[in-house]
């Protein structure tokens, strides 16, 4: 076994930096400023219609609400919610003009009494897959929930 085969990669794999592919057909869009209740209601309606269990639909509502709340917490911009079905999943994407600079955002469990940071961490806990792209132009967080999986 040659040493070189196990050398650490010198850069992030290119696919991880590609922009996210566009949403599927028949996507639903909602622009929000402060009306998070409307964001949650739309996610609940679409997730339930797609066949997510009540528990998992509520998980997705929490996740999307937390990301949308970050738009209010950290930016002055409006945000866009996009919801669509793809390959047996319900997908929700939140886009806003904020920038997340911490590459580990949401991936470190905050202490229960921590002053902040629970929001994005919860998203990673409840969603089946989270894709995040962020640069100076803005941030997109794409949350996937597979239809037909049991509650966790």
């Amino acid at each position, binding site marked *: 076994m040659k040493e070189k085969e196990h050398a650490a990669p010198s850069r992030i794999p290119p696919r991880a930096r590609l922009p996210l592919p566009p949403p599927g057909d028949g996507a639903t869009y909602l622009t929000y400023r*402060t009306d*998070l*209740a409307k964001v*949650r209601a739309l996610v609940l309606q679409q997730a339930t219609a797609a066949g997510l269990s009540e*528990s998992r639909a*509520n*998980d997705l*509502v*929490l996740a999307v*609400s*937390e990301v949308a*709340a970050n738009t*209010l*917490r950290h930016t002055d911009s409006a945000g866009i919610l996009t919801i669509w079905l793809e390959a047996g999943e319900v997908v929700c994407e939140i886009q806003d003009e904020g920038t997340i600079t911490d590459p580990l955002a949401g991936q470190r469990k*905050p202490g*229960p*009494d921590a*002053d*902040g940071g*629970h*929001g994005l961490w*919860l998203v990673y*806990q*409840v969603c089946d897959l989270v894709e995040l792209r962020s640069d100076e132009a803005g941030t997109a967080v794409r949350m996937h929930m597979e239809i037909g999986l049991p509650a966790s």
Partner: protein
Amino acid sequence: MDLLTTSVATGDSDGGPYTLVALAGEADVTNSGALRELLDAEVAKEPRTLVIDLSELRFMDSSALHVVLRANRTMDRQGGVLALAGPRDPVAKMLRLTAADQLLPVYASVAEATAE
């Protein structure tokens, strides 16, 4: 109609006097400031026991949770007890995932919360 409505009452039980704050609707970042003001005011009265009734709360996010934890820290310093009562499934799950349920007691009902 307000997204979050609150009510405050005081009571007495075998466990002693208590303040009961009931939340109804949805608690998120947009109303967490108002929730903080309310809890600050009640905690400032230095109750021995403060119970937050969550049975009519459909949704709670991390901003609302932080407000509750902040009140809990103050109650702790004051030698009082803050307890949550009757969370619905989505809220109970959030409390569990964040381990908030290890920082303060969570009871199935107000009756149980005020019994001690």
